Protein backbone atom coordinates (compact mmCIF):
# COMPACT_ATOMS: atom_id res chain seq x y z
CA UNK A 1 0.00 0.00 0.00
CA UNK A 2 1.31 3.39 -0.91
CA UNK A 3 2.07 5.90 1.81
CA UNK A 4 -0.48 8.59 2.51
CA UNK A 5 0.30 12.28 2.89
CA UNK A 6 -2.38 14.05 4.89
CA UNK A 7 -2.82 17.80 4.43
CA UNK A 8 -4.64 19.54 7.26
CA UNK A 9 -6.46 22.43 5.64
CA UNK A 10 -7.14 25.52 7.74
CA UNK A 11 -10.45 27.28 8.01
CA UNK A 12 -11.19 30.16 10.32
CA UNK A 13 -14.69 31.40 11.02
CA UNK A 14 -15.98 29.26 8.14
CA UNK A 15 -13.53 30.68 5.59
CA UNK A 16 -10.78 28.67 3.93
CA UNK A 17 -7.32 30.02 4.64
CA UNK A 18 -5.80 30.36 1.15
CA UNK A 19 -2.37 29.35 2.42
CA UNK A 20 -3.78 25.81 2.65
CA UNK A 21 -3.61 25.60 -1.16
CA UNK A 22 0.16 26.06 -0.85
CA UNK A 23 0.27 23.09 1.52
CA UNK A 24 -1.72 21.01 -0.98
CA UNK A 25 0.78 22.05 -3.67
CA UNK A 26 3.63 20.99 -1.36
CA UNK A 27 1.99 17.61 -0.73
CA UNK A 28 1.48 17.05 -4.46
CA UNK A 29 5.13 17.94 -5.14
CA UNK A 30 6.31 15.45 -2.51
CA UNK A 31 3.90 12.80 -3.78
CA UNK A 32 5.26 13.26 -7.32
CA UNK A 33 8.65 12.11 -6.05
CA UNK A 34 7.62 9.46 -3.54
CA UNK A 35 4.53 7.98 -5.16
CA UNK A 36 2.44 8.70 -2.07
CA UNK A 37 -1.29 9.35 -2.12
CA UNK A 38 -2.46 12.79 -1.01
CA UNK A 39 -5.52 13.28 1.16
CA UNK A 40 -6.82 16.40 2.85
CA UNK A 41 -8.90 17.00 5.92
CA UNK A 42 -10.40 20.01 7.60
CA UNK A 43 -11.97 20.39 11.01
CA UNK A 44 -14.69 22.57 12.46
CA UNK A 45 -18.42 22.65 12.98
CA UNK A 46 -20.86 22.80 10.07
CA UNK A 47 -18.12 23.45 7.53
CA UNK A 48 -18.91 20.74 4.96
CA UNK A 49 -19.68 23.55 2.50
CA UNK A 50 -15.97 24.26 2.24
CA UNK A 51 -15.15 20.73 1.10
CA UNK A 52 -15.98 21.00 -2.64
CA UNK A 53 -13.33 23.68 -3.27
CA UNK A 54 -10.70 21.41 -1.73
CA UNK A 55 -12.06 18.29 -3.40
CA UNK A 56 -11.60 19.98 -6.78
CA UNK A 57 -7.86 19.57 -6.29
CA UNK A 58 -6.07 16.38 -7.25
CA UNK A 59 -6.60 14.45 -4.01
CA UNK A 60 -7.54 10.87 -3.19
CA UNK A 61 -10.00 11.93 -0.53
CA UNK A 62 -11.25 14.82 1.57
CA UNK A 63 -12.39 14.20 5.13
CA UNK A 64 -14.43 16.76 7.04
CA UNK A 65 -13.96 16.29 10.78
CA UNK A 66 -17.01 17.77 12.41
CA UNK A 67 -17.99 18.44 16.00
CA UNK A 68 -19.89 21.23 17.74
CA UNK A 69 -16.91 21.27 20.11
CA UNK A 70 -14.74 22.41 17.17
CA UNK A 71 -16.91 25.47 16.41
CA UNK A 72 -14.44 27.91 17.97
CA UNK A 73 -10.77 27.11 17.63
CA UNK A 74 -8.93 25.98 20.76
CA UNK A 75 -6.12 23.40 20.80
CA UNK A 76 -7.45 20.60 23.05
CA UNK A 77 -10.48 19.61 20.97
CA UNK A 78 -8.50 19.87 17.75
CA UNK A 79 -5.70 17.68 19.10
CA UNK A 80 -8.17 15.07 20.40
CA UNK A 81 -9.98 14.95 17.04
CA UNK A 82 -6.85 14.88 14.89
CA UNK A 83 -5.08 12.35 17.11
CA UNK A 84 -7.96 9.89 16.66
CA UNK A 85 -8.12 10.55 12.93
CA UNK A 86 -4.37 10.12 12.44
CA UNK A 87 -4.29 6.93 14.52
CA UNK A 88 -7.00 5.54 12.31
CA UNK A 89 -5.79 6.76 8.88
CA UNK A 90 -2.09 6.20 9.64
CA UNK A 91 -0.60 8.76 7.24
CA UNK A 92 3.17 8.68 6.85
CA UNK A 93 3.38 12.45 6.59
CA UNK A 94 1.08 15.17 7.94
CA UNK A 95 1.49 18.60 6.34
CA UNK A 96 0.13 21.91 7.60
CA UNK A 97 0.63 25.60 6.83
CA UNK A 98 2.78 27.40 9.42
CA UNK A 99 0.01 29.70 10.63
CA UNK A 100 -0.55 31.09 14.13
CA UNK A 101 -3.36 28.56 14.60
CA UNK A 102 -1.19 25.61 13.56
CA UNK A 103 1.67 26.84 15.75
CA UNK A 104 -0.79 26.70 18.63
CA UNK A 105 -1.86 23.05 18.28
CA UNK A 106 0.66 21.21 16.07
CA UNK A 107 3.43 20.78 18.67
CA UNK A 108 0.79 19.47 21.11
CA UNK A 109 -0.54 17.06 18.48
CA UNK A 110 2.90 15.69 17.62
CA UNK A 111 3.78 15.33 21.31
CA UNK A 112 0.48 13.59 22.09
CA UNK A 113 1.52 10.98 19.51
CA UNK A 114 5.12 10.88 20.85
CA UNK A 115 6.34 12.29 17.58
CA UNK A 116 7.99 15.47 16.35
CA UNK A 117 7.16 18.41 14.14
CA UNK A 118 9.58 20.01 11.69
CA UNK A 119 8.25 23.55 11.82
CA UNK A 120 8.35 26.40 9.32
CA UNK A 121 9.98 24.41 6.50
CA UNK A 122 10.59 26.14 3.17
CA UNK A 123 11.32 23.15 0.96
CA UNK A 124 12.08 19.46 0.73
CA UNK A 125 14.22 17.04 -1.22
CA UNK A 126 14.40 13.30 -1.51
CA UNK A 127 17.67 11.83 -0.32
CA UNK A 128 17.58 8.12 -1.12
CA UNK A 129 14.58 6.74 0.73
CA UNK A 130 14.54 9.66 3.09
CA UNK A 131 12.80 13.01 2.88
CA UNK A 132 14.89 15.96 3.96
CA UNK A 133 13.24 19.27 4.80
CA UNK A 134 14.85 22.68 4.60
CA UNK A 135 14.18 25.26 7.26
CA UNK A 136 15.69 28.60 8.12
CA UNK A 137 17.76 29.02 11.26
CA UNK A 138 19.35 31.94 13.03
CA UNK A 139 16.70 34.27 11.65
CA UNK A 140 17.38 33.24 8.07
CA UNK A 141 21.16 33.66 8.21
CA UNK A 142 21.50 29.90 7.68
CA UNK A 143 19.44 27.13 6.18
CA UNK A 144 19.36 23.65 7.65
CA UNK A 145 18.54 20.28 6.17
CA UNK A 146 16.48 18.43 8.74
CA UNK A 147 15.31 14.82 8.69
CA UNK A 148 13.11 12.66 10.89
CA UNK A 149 14.79 10.18 13.23
CA UNK A 150 11.59 8.51 14.44
CA UNK A 151 8.86 6.32 12.91
CA UNK A 152 5.86 7.83 11.10
CA UNK A 153 3.66 9.78 11.33
CA UNK A 154 5.95 12.71 10.55
CA UNK A 155 4.67 16.25 11.00
CA UNK A 156 5.81 19.23 8.93
CA UNK A 157 4.58 22.82 8.67
CA UNK A 158 5.45 24.95 5.63
CA UNK A 159 6.13 28.66 5.71
CA UNK A 160 3.67 30.87 3.81
CA UNK A 161 5.00 31.44 0.30
CA UNK A 162 7.24 28.35 0.29
CA UNK A 163 5.01 26.79 -2.38
CA UNK A 164 2.66 28.43 -4.84
CA UNK A 165 -1.00 27.88 -4.08
CA UNK A 166 -1.99 28.42 -7.70
CA UNK A 167 0.23 25.45 -8.59
CA UNK A 168 -2.02 23.10 -6.59
CA UNK A 169 -3.11 20.70 -9.31
CA UNK A 170 -6.81 20.25 -10.02
CA UNK A 171 -8.18 16.72 -10.18
CA UNK A 172 -9.78 15.14 -13.27
CA UNK A 173 -12.89 14.73 -11.18
CA UNK A 174 -13.86 15.81 -7.69
CA UNK A 175 -12.29 13.83 -4.87
CA UNK A 176 -14.69 11.88 -2.65
CA UNK A 177 -15.73 13.78 0.46
CA UNK A 178 -16.50 12.05 3.72
CA UNK A 179 -17.78 13.76 6.83
CA UNK A 180 -16.99 12.14 10.14
CA UNK A 181 -18.01 13.19 13.64
CA UNK A 182 -15.18 13.73 16.03
CA UNK A 183 -15.66 12.12 19.39
CA UNK A 184 -14.34 14.70 21.85
CA UNK A 185 -15.03 13.63 25.42
CA UNK A 186 -16.37 16.10 27.96
CA UNK A 187 -13.62 17.70 29.99
CA UNK A 188 -11.01 17.42 27.23
CA UNK A 189 -11.37 21.07 26.28
CA UNK A 190 -9.84 23.30 28.94
CA UNK A 191 -9.55 26.72 27.29
CA UNK A 192 -12.58 28.91 26.63
CA UNK A 193 -11.94 31.09 23.59
CA UNK A 194 -13.92 34.23 22.79
CA UNK A 195 -14.55 35.66 19.34
CA UNK A 196 -11.58 37.19 17.51
CA UNK A 197 -11.62 40.99 17.38
CA UNK A 198 -9.63 43.85 15.87
CA UNK A 199 -8.04 46.29 18.28
CA UNK A 200 -8.84 49.45 16.39
CA UNK A 201 -9.81 50.16 12.85
CA UNK A 202 -6.65 50.10 10.82
CA UNK A 203 -5.92 53.71 10.01
CA UNK A 204 -3.37 53.05 7.31
CA UNK A 205 -3.84 50.50 4.57
CA UNK A 206 -0.27 49.88 3.48
CA UNK A 207 -1.39 47.18 1.06
CA UNK A 208 -2.47 49.94 -1.33
CA UNK A 209 0.83 51.85 -1.18
CA UNK A 210 3.00 51.81 -4.32
CA UNK A 211 6.13 52.91 -2.50
CA UNK A 212 7.06 51.93 1.04
CA UNK A 213 10.10 53.06 2.98
CA UNK A 214 10.43 50.68 5.91
CA UNK A 215 12.69 51.06 8.92
CA UNK A 216 14.14 48.48 11.27
CA UNK A 217 16.33 48.27 14.32
CA UNK A 218 19.25 49.85 12.45
CA UNK A 219 17.55 53.23 12.82
CA UNK A 220 18.79 53.16 16.44
CA UNK A 221 16.67 55.99 17.90
CA UNK A 222 13.13 57.25 17.51
CA UNK A 223 14.22 60.67 16.29
CA UNK A 224 16.11 59.10 13.39
CA UNK A 225 12.83 57.88 11.90
CA UNK A 226 12.47 61.42 10.57
CA UNK A 227 15.31 60.63 8.12
CA UNK A 228 13.26 57.79 6.63
CA UNK A 229 10.06 59.85 6.71
CA UNK A 230 11.78 62.58 4.72
CA UNK A 231 12.77 60.03 2.08
CA UNK A 232 9.26 58.53 1.99
CA UNK A 233 7.82 62.04 1.53
CA UNK A 234 10.27 62.84 -1.25
CA UNK A 235 9.32 59.61 -3.02
CA UNK A 236 5.61 60.09 -2.38
CA UNK A 237 5.48 56.85 -0.40
CA UNK A 238 4.39 55.56 2.99
CA UNK A 239 6.56 54.92 6.02
CA UNK A 240 6.43 51.47 7.60
CA UNK A 241 8.51 49.42 10.01
CA UNK A 242 9.52 46.02 11.27
CA UNK A 243 8.02 44.73 14.50
CA UNK A 244 10.66 45.95 17.02
CA UNK A 245 10.12 49.56 15.93
CA UNK A 246 6.37 49.33 16.56
CA UNK A 247 6.92 47.39 19.80
CA UNK A 248 9.03 50.31 21.00
CA UNK A 249 6.20 52.68 20.13
CA UNK A 250 8.35 54.62 17.66
CA UNK A 251 5.70 54.10 14.97
CA UNK A 252 2.09 52.99 15.47
CA UNK A 253 1.26 49.28 15.18
CA UNK A 254 -0.70 49.84 11.97
CA UNK A 255 2.61 50.67 10.24
CA UNK A 256 4.01 47.21 10.93
CA UNK A 257 4.96 44.88 8.07
CA UNK A 258 5.34 41.15 8.65
CA UNK A 259 3.59 38.04 9.89
CA UNK A 260 1.91 39.88 12.74
CA UNK A 261 1.38 43.07 10.72
CA UNK A 262 0.39 43.83 7.15
CA UNK A 263 1.47 41.91 4.05
CA UNK A 264 2.40 44.22 1.20
CA UNK A 265 3.57 44.00 -2.39
CA UNK A 266 4.35 47.55 -3.53
CA UNK A 267 6.26 48.60 -6.64
CA UNK A 268 9.14 49.61 -4.39
CA UNK A 269 10.02 48.40 -0.92
CA UNK A 270 12.97 50.26 0.47
CA UNK A 271 14.22 48.49 3.59
CA UNK A 272 16.37 50.67 5.81
CA UNK A 273 18.27 49.10 8.69
CA UNK A 274 16.13 45.97 8.46
CA UNK A 275 18.08 42.74 8.85
CA UNK A 276 15.32 40.63 7.33
CA UNK A 277 14.08 38.23 10.00
CA UNK A 278 11.72 35.61 8.59
CA UNK A 279 8.70 37.19 10.28
CA UNK A 280 9.38 40.41 8.41
CA UNK A 281 10.27 38.84 5.06
CA UNK A 282 6.94 36.99 4.80
CA UNK A 283 5.20 40.36 4.88
CA UNK A 284 7.09 41.98 1.99
CA UNK A 285 8.82 39.40 -0.20
CA UNK A 286 6.12 39.80 -2.85
CA UNK A 287 7.23 43.40 -3.52
CA UNK A 288 8.03 44.14 -7.17
CA UNK A 289 11.39 45.72 -6.35
CA UNK A 290 13.30 45.60 -3.11
CA UNK A 291 16.14 47.92 -2.17
CA UNK A 292 17.99 47.22 1.05
CA UNK A 293 20.32 49.51 2.96
CA UNK A 294 22.08 47.84 5.87
CA UNK A 295 25.43 48.09 7.59
CA UNK A 296 25.75 44.30 7.84
CA UNK A 297 26.71 42.71 4.52
CA UNK A 298 25.52 39.33 5.87
CA UNK A 299 22.00 40.55 6.67
CA UNK A 300 19.41 38.13 5.21
CA UNK A 301 17.48 41.04 3.66
CA UNK A 302 20.13 41.08 0.90
CA UNK A 303 19.05 37.54 -0.06
CA UNK A 304 15.84 38.92 -1.48
CA UNK A 305 16.89 42.46 -2.46
CA UNK A 306 17.18 43.54 -6.10
CA UNK A 307 19.57 46.33 -5.16
CA UNK A 308 21.67 46.40 -2.04
CA UNK A 309 23.78 48.98 -0.27
CA UNK A 310 26.12 48.03 2.56
CA UNK A 311 26.74 51.20 4.48
CA UNK A 312 25.78 53.73 7.08
CA UNK A 313 22.14 54.66 6.64
CA UNK A 314 22.64 57.91 8.53
CA UNK A 315 24.92 59.13 5.70
CA UNK A 316 23.02 57.54 2.84
CA UNK A 317 19.43 58.51 3.70
CA UNK A 318 19.92 62.32 3.68
CA UNK A 319 22.00 62.11 0.49
CA UNK A 320 19.36 59.95 -1.19
CA UNK A 321 16.50 62.22 -0.10
CA UNK A 322 18.32 65.22 -1.62
CA UNK A 323 19.04 63.34 -4.83
CA UNK A 324 15.39 62.19 -5.15
CA UNK A 325 14.19 65.78 -4.63
CA UNK A 326 16.60 66.97 -7.31
CA UNK A 327 15.50 64.27 -9.74
CA UNK A 328 11.84 65.08 -9.23
CA UNK A 329 12.65 68.74 -9.68
Amino acid at each position, binding site marked *: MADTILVIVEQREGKLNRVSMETIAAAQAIAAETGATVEASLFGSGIAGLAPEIAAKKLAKVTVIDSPKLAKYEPDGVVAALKDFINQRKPSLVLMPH*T*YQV*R*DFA*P*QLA*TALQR*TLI*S*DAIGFRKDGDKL*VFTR*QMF*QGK*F*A*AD*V*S*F*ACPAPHFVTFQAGAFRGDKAEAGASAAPVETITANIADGVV*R*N*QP*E*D*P*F*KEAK*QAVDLTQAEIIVSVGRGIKEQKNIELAKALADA*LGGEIAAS*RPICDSGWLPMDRQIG*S*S*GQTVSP*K*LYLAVGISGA*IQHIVGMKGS*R*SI*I*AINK*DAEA*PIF*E*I*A*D*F*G*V*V*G*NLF*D*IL*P*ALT*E*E*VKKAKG
Partner: protein
Amino acid sequence: MKILVCMKQVPQKDAPLKLNESGTWIRDDVSYEVNEPDAFALEEALRQKEKHTGEVVVITAGPARSQQVLREGLAKGADRAIHLEDNGFVGLDAFNMAKAFVAAIKDEKFDLIFTGLQSDDYGYAQTGVIMAELLGWPHATIIMEIQKSDSGIKVKRELESGFFQHVSMPLPAVLTIQSGINKLRYATLLGIKQAKNKPLRKVTMEEVKSALGDNLQKIEKLYVPQKTKKTEMLEGSPGEIAKKLVDKLRNDVRVI
Protein backbone atom coordinates in the same frame (compact mmCIF):
# COMPACT_ATOMS: atom_id res chain seq x y z
CA MET B 1 1.62 33.26 41.65
CA LYS B 2 4.65 31.10 41.20
CA ILE B 3 6.00 31.56 37.70
CA LEU B 4 8.79 29.76 35.86
CA VAL B 5 10.37 31.62 32.94
CA CYS B 6 12.28 29.56 30.35
CA MET B 7 15.09 31.63 28.92
CA LYS B 8 17.61 30.98 26.20
CA GLN B 9 20.98 32.40 25.32
CA VAL B 10 21.28 33.07 21.60
CA PRO B 11 23.92 34.77 19.42
CA GLN B 12 23.64 38.55 19.39
CA LYS B 13 21.48 39.88 16.57
CA ASP B 14 24.32 41.61 14.74
CA ALA B 15 26.97 38.98 15.52
CA PRO B 16 28.62 37.62 12.37
CA LEU B 17 28.10 33.86 12.52
CA LYS B 18 30.45 31.23 11.13
CA LEU B 19 29.78 27.56 10.51
CA ASN B 20 31.77 24.98 12.42
CA GLU B 21 34.15 22.63 10.56
CA SER B 22 31.60 19.85 10.18
CA GLY B 23 28.88 22.21 8.98
CA THR B 24 26.43 21.08 11.64
CA TRP B 25 26.34 24.12 13.91
CA ILE B 26 27.82 27.57 14.33
CA ARG B 27 31.21 28.25 15.87
CA ASP B 28 30.52 29.33 19.41
CA ASP B 29 33.13 32.09 19.61
CA VAL B 30 30.45 34.77 19.19
CA SER B 31 28.80 37.23 21.56
CA TYR B 32 25.54 36.09 23.09
CA GLU B 33 22.43 37.74 24.47
CA VAL B 34 19.04 36.83 25.92
CA ASN B 35 16.60 35.60 23.29
CA GLU B 36 14.40 38.67 22.84
CA PRO B 37 10.92 37.18 23.37
CA ASP B 38 12.27 35.51 26.55
CA ALA B 39 13.19 38.94 27.91
CA PHE B 40 9.55 39.99 27.44
CA ALA B 41 8.43 36.74 29.12
CA LEU B 42 10.60 37.53 32.13
CA GLU B 43 9.32 41.10 32.30
CA GLU B 44 5.72 39.86 32.22
CA ALA B 45 6.45 37.38 35.03
CA LEU B 46 7.96 40.14 37.16
CA ARG B 47 4.93 42.36 36.55
CA GLN B 48 2.53 39.57 37.49
CA LYS B 49 4.47 38.96 40.68
CA GLU B 50 4.38 42.67 41.52
CA LYS B 51 0.59 42.64 41.07
CA HIS B 52 -0.30 39.38 42.75
CA THR B 53 2.81 38.53 44.84
CA GLY B 54 4.53 35.19 44.43
CA GLU B 55 7.83 33.99 43.07
CA VAL B 56 9.64 34.20 39.73
CA VAL B 57 12.12 31.47 38.85
CA VAL B 58 14.29 31.60 35.72
CA ILE B 59 15.56 28.46 34.01
CA THR B 60 17.96 27.87 31.13
CA ALA B 61 19.95 25.03 29.59
CA GLY B 62 23.40 25.21 28.07
CA PRO B 63 27.12 25.45 28.86
CA ALA B 64 28.61 27.69 31.56
CA ARG B 65 28.32 30.81 29.39
CA SER B 66 24.53 30.57 29.38
CA GLN B 67 24.44 31.31 33.12
CA GLN B 68 24.66 34.94 32.05
CA VAL B 69 20.95 35.00 31.07
CA LEU B 70 20.05 33.73 34.55
CA ARG B 71 22.26 36.38 36.17
CA GLU B 72 20.48 39.04 34.13
CA GLY B 73 17.11 37.60 35.16
CA LEU B 74 18.07 37.60 38.83
CA ALA B 75 19.39 41.16 38.54
CA LYS B 76 16.07 42.31 37.08
CA GLY B 77 14.14 40.77 39.96
CA ALA B 78 13.76 37.00 39.58
CA ASP B 79 13.98 35.23 42.95
CA ARG B 80 16.04 32.22 42.01
CA ALA B 81 17.46 30.35 39.04
CA ILE B 82 17.87 26.82 37.69
CA HIS B 83 20.71 26.04 35.29
CA LEU B 84 20.77 22.80 33.33
CA GLU B 85 24.48 23.06 32.74
CA ASP B 86 25.93 20.98 29.94
CA ASN B 87 27.00 21.66 26.39
CA GLY B 88 24.93 18.62 25.39
CA PHE B 89 21.69 20.54 25.98
CA VAL B 90 22.45 22.78 23.00
CA GLY B 91 21.95 19.92 20.56
CA LEU B 92 18.59 18.68 21.87
CA ASP B 93 15.50 18.90 19.71
CA ALA B 94 12.47 20.72 21.12
CA PHE B 95 10.86 17.46 22.36
CA ASN B 96 13.88 16.51 24.45
CA MET B 97 14.57 20.07 25.60
CA ALA B 98 11.01 20.21 26.94
CA LYS B 99 11.52 16.83 28.63
CA ALA B 100 14.73 18.07 30.26
CA PHE B 101 12.99 21.18 31.66
CA VAL B 102 10.04 19.12 32.91
CA ALA B 103 12.42 16.66 34.63
CA ALA B 104 14.36 19.52 36.25
CA ILE B 105 11.21 21.01 37.84
CA LYS B 106 9.51 17.76 38.88
CA ASP B 107 9.63 18.68 42.58
CA GLU B 108 8.34 22.24 42.04
CA LYS B 109 4.76 23.51 41.95
CA PHE B 110 4.38 26.35 39.48
CA ASP B 111 1.13 28.11 38.58
CA LEU B 112 2.46 29.37 35.27
CA ILE B 113 5.32 28.64 32.91
CA PHE B 114 6.31 31.33 30.42
CA THR B 115 8.49 30.95 27.36
CA GLY B 116 9.24 33.41 24.59
CA LEU B 117 7.15 32.59 21.51
CA GLN B 118 10.21 31.32 19.66
CA SER B 119 13.99 31.45 19.73
CA ASP B 120 16.20 33.44 17.40
CA ASP B 121 18.49 30.45 16.76
CA TYR B 122 16.42 27.32 16.05
CA GLY B 123 13.13 29.18 15.68
CA TYR B 124 11.09 26.05 16.48
CA ALA B 125 8.31 27.89 18.36
CA GLN B 126 7.46 24.59 20.04
CA THR B 127 9.21 24.03 23.38
CA GLY B 128 6.54 25.73 25.53
CA VAL B 129 3.63 23.92 23.89
CA ILE B 130 5.43 20.58 24.19
CA MET B 131 6.12 21.22 27.89
CA ALA B 132 2.40 21.85 28.43
CA GLU B 133 1.48 18.56 26.81
CA LEU B 134 4.13 16.65 28.79
CA LEU B 135 2.86 18.20 32.02
CA GLY B 136 -0.78 17.69 31.06
CA TRP B 137 -1.42 21.45 31.37
CA PRO B 138 -3.37 23.72 29.01
CA HIS B 139 -1.43 26.28 27.00
CA ALA B 140 -1.97 29.38 24.93
CA THR B 141 0.47 30.90 22.43
CA ILE B 142 1.55 34.36 21.28
CA ILE B 143 0.22 36.14 24.35
CA MET B 144 -0.14 39.92 24.53
CA GLU B 145 -1.92 40.33 27.89
CA ILE B 146 -2.54 38.30 31.05
CA GLN B 147 -5.23 38.99 33.66
CA LYS B 148 -5.90 36.93 36.75
CA SER B 149 -9.49 35.78 37.13
CA ASP B 150 -11.41 33.91 39.83
CA SER B 151 -11.02 30.57 38.13
CA GLY B 152 -7.61 31.03 36.55
CA ILE B 153 -6.46 33.54 33.96
CA LYS B 154 -7.75 35.39 30.94
CA VAL B 155 -5.18 35.98 28.21
CA LYS B 156 -5.13 37.94 24.99
CA ARG B 157 -3.74 35.94 22.07
CA GLU B 158 -2.41 37.61 18.97
CA LEU B 159 -3.87 36.16 15.77
CA GLU B 160 -2.90 37.01 12.22
CA SER B 161 -3.88 40.11 10.21
CA GLY B 162 -4.32 42.36 13.23
CA PHE B 163 -6.83 40.16 15.04
CA PHE B 164 -6.75 39.26 18.73
CA GLN B 165 -8.71 36.87 20.90
CA HIS B 166 -9.41 36.53 24.60
CA VAL B 167 -9.11 33.06 26.08
CA SER B 168 -10.03 32.01 29.63
CA MET B 169 -8.06 29.11 31.02
CA PRO B 170 -7.45 27.30 34.29
CA LEU B 171 -4.12 27.13 36.12
CA PRO B 172 -1.52 25.72 36.02
CA ALA B 173 -0.82 26.62 32.41
CA VAL B 174 1.96 27.35 29.93
CA LEU B 175 1.99 30.61 27.96
CA THR B 176 4.29 31.61 25.10
CA ILE B 177 4.86 35.35 25.21
CA GLN B 178 4.99 37.70 22.23
CA SER B 179 7.62 40.44 21.97
CA GLY B 180 6.20 43.85 22.75
CA ILE B 181 3.71 42.66 25.41
CA ASN B 182 5.29 45.15 27.82
CA LYS B 183 8.19 47.56 28.19
CA LEU B 184 11.40 45.97 29.38
CA ARG B 185 13.08 47.23 32.53
CA TYR B 186 16.79 47.61 33.04
CA ALA B 187 18.60 45.91 35.86
CA THR B 188 19.55 48.37 38.61
CA LEU B 189 22.96 48.45 40.25
CA LEU B 190 21.34 47.25 43.46
CA GLY B 191 19.63 44.46 41.56
CA ILE B 192 22.90 43.34 40.02
CA LYS B 193 24.48 43.33 43.49
CA GLN B 194 21.62 41.39 45.06
CA ALA B 195 21.63 38.85 42.21
CA LYS B 196 24.97 37.54 43.44
CA ASN B 197 23.35 36.24 46.64
CA LYS B 198 20.24 34.72 45.07
CA PRO B 199 20.02 30.92 44.88
CA LEU B 200 21.05 29.23 41.64
CA ARG B 201 20.47 25.50 41.42
CA LYS B 202 22.60 23.58 38.95
CA VAL B 203 21.21 20.48 37.26
CA THR B 204 23.62 18.14 35.49
CA MET B 205 22.89 16.14 32.35
CA GLU B 206 23.24 13.03 34.50
CA GLU B 207 20.27 14.08 36.67
CA VAL B 208 17.81 14.40 33.79
CA LYS B 209 19.28 11.86 31.38
CA SER B 210 16.79 9.11 32.24
CA ALA B 211 13.94 11.40 31.11
CA LEU B 212 15.49 12.00 27.69
CA GLY B 213 15.52 9.91 24.54
CA ASP B 214 17.18 10.16 21.16
CA ASN B 215 16.39 13.27 19.16
CA LEU B 216 13.32 12.70 16.97
CA GLN B 217 14.59 15.07 14.33
CA LYS B 218 18.11 15.60 13.15
CA ILE B 219 19.91 18.56 11.65
CA GLU B 220 21.87 16.95 8.84
CA LYS B 221 23.60 20.06 7.64
CA LEU B 222 23.69 23.80 8.25
CA TYR B 223 24.70 26.07 5.38
CA VAL B 224 24.51 29.55 3.96
CA PRO B 225 21.29 29.66 1.93
CA GLN B 226 21.58 29.81 -1.82
CA LYS B 227 20.47 33.09 -3.24
CA THR B 228 17.31 32.86 -5.25
CA LYS B 229 17.60 36.41 -6.45
CA LYS B 230 20.54 38.22 -7.96
CA THR B 231 21.25 41.29 -5.89
CA GLU B 232 23.10 44.16 -7.50
CA MET B 233 25.27 45.77 -4.84
CA LEU B 234 25.86 49.49 -5.17
CA GLU B 235 29.08 50.99 -3.82
CA GLY B 236 30.72 54.35 -3.40
CA SER B 237 30.49 57.41 -1.19
CA PRO B 238 27.04 58.26 0.22
CA GLY B 239 26.65 60.86 -2.55
CA GLU B 240 27.61 58.39 -5.27
CA ILE B 241 25.33 55.71 -3.84
CA ALA B 242 22.45 58.21 -3.75
CA LYS B 243 23.02 59.02 -7.44
CA LYS B 244 23.17 55.33 -8.37
CA LEU B 245 20.00 54.60 -6.42
CA VAL B 246 18.09 57.41 -8.07
CA ASP B 247 19.23 56.05 -11.43
CA LYS B 248 17.79 52.64 -10.46
CA LEU B 249 14.58 54.23 -9.17
CA ARG B 250 14.15 56.00 -12.47
CA ASN B 251 15.23 53.35 -14.99
CA ASP B 252 14.69 49.97 -13.31
CA VAL B 253 12.07 50.42 -10.59
CA ARG B 254 10.41 53.26 -12.53
CA VAL B 255 8.95 55.14 -9.63
CA ILE B 256 10.52 58.51 -10.41
